């Protein structure tokens, strides 16, 4: 169905097992596919391509925070495509666009890549972080941005390791929700 299905699926499976390098490679590849997909779709219905990067980031965030919904027994591309399509339709519906029907048989569009180095969205990471409760914000800063280990962060914040993990997890979910909300208001 799609040339790099096997490759993406292998990266996804490794990422689910905790392989950070594979997860990074997966998100990086997906971001190119998503960028091409959204630019193409938005252009086709006469919308500005500026919105594309917001959608790319919203979708990457959703793919990351909901990656446990991927069933390794199933194909990966349709899973990722379903999320991309859902985010696009949600975006169009909530920005009061003329609801053009987004055809469902277009997983092949996903093959296209758009390599736009340093692409930037209108979202502000610091502002997103500022909206989180103190505990989550510190956990995400240390673990996800500064790259400290969970153990180091736990020692520094005076929290247990599992509390750090939970804070990171919940914080990312809250950020994903804020991105999805902010995109449409």
């Amino acid at each position, binding site marked *: 169905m799609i040339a790099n299905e096997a490759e993406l699926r292998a990266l996804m499976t490794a990422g689910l097992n905790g392989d*950070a390098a594979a*997860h*990074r490679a997966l998100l990086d590849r997906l971001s190119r596919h998503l960028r091409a997909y959204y630019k193409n779709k938005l252009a086709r219905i006469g919308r500005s391509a500026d919105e594309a990067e917001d959608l790319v980031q919203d979708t990457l965030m959703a793919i*990351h925070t909901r990656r446990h919904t991927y069933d390794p027994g199933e194909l990966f591309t349709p*899973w990722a495509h*379903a*999320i991309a399509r859902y985010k696009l339709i949600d975006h169009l519906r909530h920005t009061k666009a003329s609801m053009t029907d987004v055809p469902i048989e277009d997983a092949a569009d996903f093959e296209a890549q758009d390599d736009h180095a*340093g*692409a930037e*969205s209108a979202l502000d990471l610091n502002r997103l972080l500022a909206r989180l409760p103190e505990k989550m914000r510190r956990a995400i800063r240390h673990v996800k941005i500064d790259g400290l280990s969970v153990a180091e962060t736990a020692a520094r914040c005076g929290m247990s390791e599992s509390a750090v993990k939970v804070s990171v997890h919940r914080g990312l979910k809250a950020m994903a929700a804020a991105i999805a909300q902010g995109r449409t208001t």
Partner: protein
Amino acid sequence: MKTDDLINMLSTNVEPVDRGQLRRSLGLAVALGAGGALVAALLTLGVRPDLHEPGALAFLGLKLAFSAGVVLMASLLLTRLARPGGERRTRPVLALLPFAAIVLLAGLSLAYAPSTHWEAMIVGDMWLECLVSIPIIAIVPFAVIVWTVRRLAAPTDLARTGAFAGLAAGGVSAMGYALHCMDDSLPFIALWYGGTIILCTVAGALLGPRLLRW
């Protein structure tokens, strides 16, 4: 925010993912909802007083079998719909099986009964109570299921997912109500149990797009 920075952030210190979590949590949500419905029905309505009679017990079993069948089908389909693209891999007609079975049985029992009995068999004594109780008892299970789906799942067809959440909630609610209900006829079960459960399903479909967005 640069997309590269976001990717950096997301792929720093990646934790392994628990893959059974979604299925387990949905199962737990339905079970909790069933427990809640049972308690609600027992506290507000109470168990029917004639349970020692074999006829009553048989009909209770039948009502429970029908509702449990509905819950089982709804839960199975809901677990599929909870994953992105799941709507393309589900057959919603499966959910109709318990309904088809009860309608068939109801039709047979009407066919073998004199037509003068039909009205009593269909309308029963407590149709209004049934019509009101099942949707009300379904509210708590529906909330528990919707909360779990919102938190953990990633449905891409929100109306359909909402519908099956409503169907599951209606089913567990009917299981609770069955403990109290004394209307023992197949057409009554088909019409009033089936009908109110479908009502819950329609309500779920209407609420889904609003409640399940992610």
